[in-house]
């Protein structure tokens, strides 16, 4: 179970902060094979990307050509999503 792993399980979803607006985000998503699921809530310039050709569950963060996306100058921040244990009170 994720709690037994120090950092949890990596998914094939990413959160990114991309300057330049939605069009720029869409361009970058397509360039590296991600699906752009749009802005994250009301967080301006933050986008939700999904990559169908990467491992859905892994204890290791995802590596491959798609990770070169972080080299894009307009990509200011990127975080591969990790499943976190949350308990109802």
């Amino acid at each position, binding site marked *: 179970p994720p*709690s037994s792993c120090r950092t949890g399980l990596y*998914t094939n*979803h990413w*959160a990114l902060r991309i300057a330049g607006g939605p069009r720029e985000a869409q361009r970058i998503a397509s360039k590296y094979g991600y699906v752009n*699921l749009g802005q*994250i*809530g*009301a*967080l301006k310039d*933050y986008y*939700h990307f999904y990559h169908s050709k990467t491992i859905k569950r892994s204890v290791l963060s995802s590596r491959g050509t798609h990770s070169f996306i972080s080299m894009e100058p307009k990509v200011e921040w990127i*975080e591969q*999503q*990790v*499943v*976190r*244990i*949350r*308990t*109802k*009170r």
Partner: protein
Amino acid sequence: DYKPGSIQSMYFNDPKWQSMWYMHCSDNTNLCQSDMNIVGAWRRGYTGKNIVITILDDGIERNHPDLMQNYDPDASFDVNGNDIDPMPRYDASNENKHGTRCAGEVAATANNTHCIVGIAFNARIGGVRMLDGDVTDMVEAKSLSLNPQHIHIYSASWGPDDDGKTVDGPASLTRQAFENGVRTGRNNLGSIYVWASGNGGRSKDHCSCDGYTNSIYTISISSTAESGRKPWYLEECASTLATTYSSGESYDRKIITTDLRQRCTDSHTGTSASAPMAAGIIALALEANRLLTWRDIQHIIVRTSRAGHLIANDWKTNAAGYKVSHLYGFGLMDAEAMVMEAEKWTTVPPQHVCVENTDRQIKTIRPDNIRNGPDNGVRSIYEATGCTDNPNHHVVYLEHVVVRITITHPRRGDLAIYLTSPSGTRSQLLANRLFDHSMEGFKNWEFMTTHCWGEKAAGDWILEIYDTPSQLRNVKTPGKLKEWSLVLYGTSIQPYSPRNDFPKAERVRLSPIEDPTEDYGADDYAGPCNAECSKVGCGGPGPDHCNDCLHYYYKSKNNTRICVPNCPPGHYSADKKRCKKCSPNCETCFGSHSDQCNTCKPGYYINEESRSCITSCPDGYYLDNNKIVCRKCSENCKTCTEFQTCTECRHGLSLQNSRCVIRCEEGKYYNGRDCEPCHHSCASCAGPGADGCLNCTEEYLMENGRCVLACNNGYYFDQSLENGYKTCKRCDASCLGCSGPGEKNCTSCPSGYLLDTGLCVVGLVCKDATEESWAEGGFCMLVKKNNLCQRKVLQQLCCRTCTLKG
């Protein structure tokens, strides 16, 4: 369309209304304690109209008969399914009932003959389905930043695992969402985040290890049972702001609310039930004043929540006069008091943040053990200025205080951390957690306390860290405090304007009409006011004629209120401006009780434990060298003159060299763990080996701390038995060997001395005793013949010939 008073009947046709013990008192027994005064707020016309709340959880049954009327699709979303319908996923176990239950507490419709009445039964309610799937940083951030210009209050009843070993909190995107929400939400008034404190009481969890309740942006709510007792599941920590009712023991009544499949339940429990209740109460206050910012709400909660009948052994009054506990924060929320404050509230001044970076000196955290007692902890004192040198960061009046700390440690659960404010308010930032075996320590973890709310920021802050090993550990790898910084949140000016400040009963006389004896009619005095009056004006020139004080005020003997720049000696600043009397023996204090002294009047000493002023130190305490404080002796001492200098020991210990050690039976000594046999030559001892003897057995003699079979050279056998034991005493300094005390019992002398009838006299080496040439008819014979032996030098030189007879 609401007409005040239309709820006079206080009757609702909702079937469960009568059983909702936490909302009203229907039975007239004296046990009736509806301390949350929700009906009182309704009576004032506040029912949550036009306020929007959303429940971040596992979905909301939007077609539930008790929810559908108030359901708000613009306050809802399905993050797990990435669609706009937040209906929960149904399964045999009804696992996804949590969100629907929370929603009902907040805004179940009143008078619709269904189930219950929500606290804000005219509010709009939505739900975000976000727990029923992968919960990632992005899922949380998306939920917390849903439609922030439309939603006023977000209520969450979930968090990191309550297993007593998890230390976890919001990741970077979620932290971004919180900051974004309080900055831009609700047209820059700030989104309001209400969070349920932990339910890990049984696994000794501590809510300071939960980054959500520890955040200054969330209002962390705990629970109390109907009896006012601590529920078994409750966690303690210093970041809890307030509490509302919930379940308690099995025999305590539970919370009644809407349930999945359009049903009703009367068994909702835990802090899950408390957070939505708080959200509902906050909705009433927001209706009373929609311009309240996220910080105004927290100030109002601090000022109106009350300890009442809540049972906790750690209630204390902070220097601003607020009672606070690690269990319940500032106490039970009071809906009516909140709407009354909200009605006339003036927004508090802008928040300032002051980061005080302490020295980066690494300190070793030594584990506590029997011998040294709990005083082994690390104690780091930092004198904070409150960033006086930077007007945009200057903090004088505190709100939240955060300690950002990095500790390496072999077993995190063994740590306990305390923070004491300059006013003496001590918060426990972390308690020992039995099940946390992690070796990760704390990396820049933020512990938060609300307990210093309203106190002054500048002064000495004391951080204490104690390490109490719960299991045998390798003591060669102690923990280390790598660094810590203090983050002070608050305002640089008095946060409360006159309107917020004096509750009606406390206002300075407003006009002569109220007090005909007044010699200055407020409306006919146009002269200048005293410098200590605020801009509200005055009824005369003196400091006792102000309508409102600029700084502080106290009551003189004839009950006149006098405005002063600072509280006079023997007083303390109770709540913001009021100076209340200290206890009689206190010189300065932080409360009016005798155990709330900071310094004492002349002739009294302060007991560092009880904080009370006494005329002499009781047993177990000693007066420190500057004759001010009675400090605790080391725990083994019964009485002492210094911390470790015992004069009397506790039962079962014996005094050895002013230390109290475990008393062992004759012939054994205490090695710190148990009693070990002494060396065979010892009759009693203080430690191992022949050096540890205190007394010797029959055939041995005590010589210079060791037991010997016979006295060595330089010692003689002392006939007078010391307490029954034989001893060898050291010879007189002039002797090398001796047969008894003093200088006349020498049997041999040191080199350079000569033995003369038991005396050692100074002398050169006697030449003629060994050199033949001198002895026979030599030089000494001449000396003797010519009667020159009485010359001292010749006598010494020819000691032998001169002493020979004839």
